[in-house]
């Protein structure tokens, strides 16, 4: 029986694990380490309602009065820099060692910067950017598990991962400002939509031919991309960014074809990187493809007493046939129940979301929802509604079997499909040998 647990990471996955441990009867010592100074808060509104100014800072707080019952020691503003798996000791930035019976790795991910030599990334298919770049080694060391990088060197260039990031960006999104978004993924599209609503002049640059083609496929990516133009936002596709120009402050973004886009503000939305560097030397395996800590379906790493959850974990998923790292909010909310059960030696059942991952996005007043596993080559068909009317549902099939579903402004049938896919996945997993 374990009597002490250290949770490294104080965002949704870490908090959800702490809650799940208590809900499942754990009565021992509970310590939560968070690199940010803030108690747990909700991140999805940072690119939407909070950025728009329609949601107050206090409304982001995740802790409720009931969470007092967690009786956790919160070590906020402290960064884990190493894990000694022999002793299950978490080493903090000040050199302090927190030794406990179990460790939960919930350090999340940080925004990928337009930076340094050798930051890979599909969104930056072009030459690596010099200029405002952060030196690569900034990724090492204590900065890692938290609000992390000191920020791009050029004023006016932002990424959005933390509430401090969003607050800083919001101050610059004044009417008439010229914003260039580098990256047309979900974060980029949501920020473009919010900024557009604030009267900002927005241009979105996407290196791929069709934004969101990776997660959604070309057809549906195209349907989502159309929202930009419909709301007066210019979308430039198929051209990588060459560099960001400016002396002290950004003045333009230069594309690989030589075009220069004047900019007062730049947001870099080119994905995120799991915060796992602090685990170097711990012996824990990191999945080469996704960069996440490898776990089984129930969050267990190869080291007994050490589990990983949320954005930093690559958990085995039978439907996908291998480890998958998800950056979905629902994964960070639901998966920790499995981690808690694993640590407590209780029978564990992965949630339906585990096999049928779900995410949503709100852009230009349209609600986009997706559930399932899509891979290149799956056939997609609009089964109800009308793409041009911005209200439709599409089902992805592989060998005739439904594997994923997407909806734009069709929540009701989407919920049914999500249920249907989950019950199929559960049946498939249960019946498998």
């Amino acid at each position, binding site marked *: 029986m374990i009597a002490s647990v250290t949770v490294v990471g104080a965002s949704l996955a870490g908090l959800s694990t702490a809650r799940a441990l208590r809900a499942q009867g754990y009565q021992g010592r509970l310590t939560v380490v968070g690199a940010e100074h803030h108690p747990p808060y*909700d991140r999805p509104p940072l690119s939407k309602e909070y950025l728009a100014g329609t949601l107050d800072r206090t409304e982001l707080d995740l802790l409720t009065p009931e969470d007092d019952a967690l009786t956790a020691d919160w070590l906020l503003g402290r960064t884990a820099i190493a894990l000694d798996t022999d002793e299950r000791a978490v080493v903090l930035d000040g050199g302090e060692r927190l030794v406990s019976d179990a460790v939960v790795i919930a350090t999340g991910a940080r925004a990928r910067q337009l930076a340094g030599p050798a930051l890979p990334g599909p969104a930056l298919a072009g030459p690596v950017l010099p200029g405002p770049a952060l030196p690569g080694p900034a990724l090492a060391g204590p900065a890692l598990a938290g609000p992390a990088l000191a920020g791009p060197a050029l004023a006016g260039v932002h990424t959005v991962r933390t509430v401090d990031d969003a607050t800083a960006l919001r101050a610059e999104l004044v009417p008439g400002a010229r914003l260039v978004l580098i990256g047309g993924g979900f974060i980029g599209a949501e920020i473009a939509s919010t900024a557009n609503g604030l009267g900002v002049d927005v241009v979105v640059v996407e290196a791929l031919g069709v934004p969101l083609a990776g997660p959604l496929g070309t057809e549906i990516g195209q349907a989502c991309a159309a929202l930009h133009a419909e709301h007066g936002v210019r979308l430039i596709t198929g051209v990588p960014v060459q560099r960001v120009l400016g002396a002290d402050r950004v003045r333009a973004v230069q594309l690989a074809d030589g075009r220069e886009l004047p900019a007062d503000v730049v947001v870099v939305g080119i994905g995120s990187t799991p915060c796992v560097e602090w685990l170097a030397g711990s012996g824990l395996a990191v999945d080469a493809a996704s960069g996440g800590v490898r776990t089984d379906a129930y969050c267990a790493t190869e080291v007994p007493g050490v589990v990983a959850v949320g954005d930093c974990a690559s958990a085995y998923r039978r439907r996908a046939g291998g480890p998958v790292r998800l950056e979905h909010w629902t994964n960070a909310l639901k998966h920790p129940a499995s981690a808690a059960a694993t640590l407590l030696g209780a029978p564990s059942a992965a949630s339906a979301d585990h096999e049928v991952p779900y995410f949503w996005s709100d852009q230009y007043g349209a609600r986009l929802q997706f559930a399932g596993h899509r891979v290149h080559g799956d056939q997609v068909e609009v089964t109800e509604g009308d793409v041009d009317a911005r209200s439709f549902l599409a089902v992805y099939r592989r060998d005739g079997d439904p594997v994923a579903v997407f909806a734009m402004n069709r*929540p009701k049938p*989407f919920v049914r499909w999500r*249920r249907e896919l989950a019950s199929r996945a559960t049946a498939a997993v249960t019946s498998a040998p």
Partner: protein
Amino acid sequence: MIRVGALADIPVGEAIRVEADVPIAVFRVSVDGADGADGAVYAIDDTCTHQKASLSDGWLDGCMVECPLHATCFDLRTGLPDGPPAKVPVRTHQVVVMDGMVYLKLAEHTREQEVEVA
């Protein structure tokens, strides 16, 4: 009281949305009502207390409705959420079924206000 419409027009296991001062979701659940009627009727605020989503679009299971966006379940009888992300209950409204017609008597204040008053 607000007149919703004929009971027969709400299929068992379904919900309809009523535009009052704020949108109201009216559910006809598959559990029989106290009067033995086939499918009791409940009404709650339609908008999830967490973030903007319409609960009448949610998944109905007995007397619980699951929010279509973030999957918190609300009890139609009490308005209470079963867990995160929602923290605040939805308001519940009194339903009157008379001569095959459904009427609503809207709650005057929020659950939080009710608690304060109590």
